[in-house]
């Protein structure tokens, strides 16, 4: 048993080193457009995995993701922008003096974004205890929108609907994928622990969970807080990636995409969330030409903005109606699983080569 654990650890370490190498290669060689897509993959991975934690593993259908992302994004943006950029942005109404001269390096700004989002997540967790599934969904959706409306009106802190431009582009593949890796690591470790079991119990049957001594308040709030911390971090990464944010970035539409991704990847599968997030981001870019006019030989197709979302929504409906467990269902990637499959493949190939009359099972 110990040998297997050590083997797995070495494999994980090797994979991480490989990933690091690939990131370095990418950072050095790819054009900004491709880099941006890769960074977005990481950001959406964090969004999806955290939503999975809240819903797939704890059973809380909380639709407030966009709100937490906004908190992290604005926090990081305001902290990392130079005082000159702030003056330039806040021409309608000057920024609050407290923030006017602050300029932080990226890491503390990102972390503070996460912490602020976590605090709000912590606070949201309590009222969430009293609401059952569909009411919780609408209430958290309302919360996300309240955050957005607040940011639209808070001229002296967020610059209102004008948004913030000129946010330093600190986000690179190391930061984004580093954060994504940390998110996956922590969420997976949590889910694979006794606390994870407790969360799943709360998800499957919260009355029984309580009867077994599990505090619903503690565990639901734990889930909310951990989840919103990383959502805040992802928001910070987003702000420092696209360099321009305004409240419209954080409409419920963002949360909707995250829900769709997670459902399609498979609720309760972290692996599924990662895969789906990356596939979604990539396909969104690949299908961009669909929304501009193009010619298929003699046929001229006019621009069709919104087409990608039509496809996405239709796909999501198809998954919900016909393939409910999504891509991975509840399965996770594991070295054991992979090696097992490879061995099985090897055996099957070996069997075909030998011309004995084996009985197939």
């Amino acid at each position, binding site marked *: 048993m110990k040998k297997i654990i050590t083997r797995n650890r070495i494999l994980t370490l090797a994979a991480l080193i490989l990933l690091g190498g690939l990131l370095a290669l990418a950072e050095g060689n790819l054009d900004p457009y491709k880099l941006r897509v890769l960074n977005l993959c990481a950001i959406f991975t964090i969004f999806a995995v955290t939503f999975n934690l809240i819903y797939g593993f704890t059973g809380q259908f909380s639709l407030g993701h966009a709100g937490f992302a906004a908190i992290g994004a604005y926090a990081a943006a305001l902290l990392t922008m130079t005082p000159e950029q702030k003056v330039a942005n806040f021409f309608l109404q000057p920024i609050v003096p407290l923030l006017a001269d602050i300029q932080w390096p990226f890491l503390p700004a990102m972390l503070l974004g996460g912490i602020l989002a976590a605090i709000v997540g912590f606070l949201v967790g309590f009222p969430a205890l009293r609401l059952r599934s569909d009411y919780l969904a609408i209430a958290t959706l309302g919360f996300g929108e309240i955050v957005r409306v607040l940011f639209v009106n808070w001229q002296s802190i967020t610059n209102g609907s004008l948004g913030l431009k000129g946010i330093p582009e600190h986000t690179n593949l190391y930061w984004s994928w580093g954060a994504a890796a940390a998110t996956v690591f*922590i969420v997976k*470790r*949590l889910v694979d*622990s*006794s*606390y994870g*079991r*407790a969360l*799943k*119990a709360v*998800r*499957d*049957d919260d*009355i*029984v*969970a*309580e*009867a*077994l*001594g*599990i*505090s*619903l308040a503690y565990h639901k709030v*734990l889930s909310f807080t*951990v989840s919103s911390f990383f959502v805040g971090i992802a928001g910070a990464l987003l702000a420092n990636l696209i360099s321009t944010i305004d409240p419209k970035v954080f409409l419920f539409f963002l949360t909707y995409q995250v829900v769709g991704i997670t459902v399609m990847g498979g609720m*309760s599968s972290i692996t599924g969330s990662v895969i789906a997030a990356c596939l979604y981001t990539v396909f969104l870019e690949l299908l961009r030409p669909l929304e501009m006019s193009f010619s298929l030989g003699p046929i001229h197709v006019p621009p069709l903005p919104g087409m990608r979302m039509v496809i996405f929504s239709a796909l999501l409906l198809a998954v919900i109606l016909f393939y409910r467990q999504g891509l991975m269902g*509840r399965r996770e990637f594991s070295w054991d699983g992979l090696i097992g499959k490879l061995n099985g493949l090897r055996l099957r190939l070996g069997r075909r080569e030998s011309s004995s009359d084996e009985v197939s099972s």
Partner: protein
Amino acid sequence: MTALLEIDALTKKFGGLVAVNEFSTRLEAGELCALIGPNGSGKTTIFNLITGIYRPTSGSIHFDGAEIGGERPDLIAKRGIARTFQNIRLFEGLDVLNNVLVGYHLRLKAGPFAAVLRMPGYVREEQMMVAQAQELLEALELDHLIHEDATSLPYGQQRKLEIARALATKPRLLLLDEPAAGMNPEESNDLMRFILHILETFELTVFLIEHQMRVVMGICPRIIVIDHGEIIAEGPPEAIQTNQRVIEAYLGVGEHA
């Protein structure tokens, strides 16, 4: 000497409906006592009151000397009261072993940070939990099913699993709500023997709701009969069987398979 469980004049009203009316009783440590009565007589309501799902309208419940009426269910569980439900409620997303392991979570001392970082204190506790769970499943003859989906087990095994999960919380008082529901006579007898076995092995006190009188007559030294939320008889099986009020309460219901 205070009894393990002391219920005094416990009353529960839902709006105008009186579900439980001045229910009083004492359970001594080590007792095996049955609570029987026709459908809708308030048996499960009493269990829900003891375990904190309902708050008493009036009256008191004392466990080990402490008042627990209206306390939160998870706190009551931590005191040492565990229960099973009328409809078997296993965690369908978890396999057999994990279902039982959930039961051990309430005594975990390590926090989520320690768990995520796999600190030595947490790892030790987790290993202990797993070892204890496996022992428990062995003692209950379920260990060969450890990695099966909990809901794929045959009915009788599911019931045993649910009880095993409750036992994992290391309770002193175990409340079983119609454990033999849906079982044929042979299965019910098996179950009753099982209950007697765990009563001794785990030093429990067992409070048992059962609808089928025949099932409890054989093994419970004390039986409380309620109807419309009130006690109508109490005593050993022989006394209950010949009690006129009890017979009338069950009239028309008869023997249930």
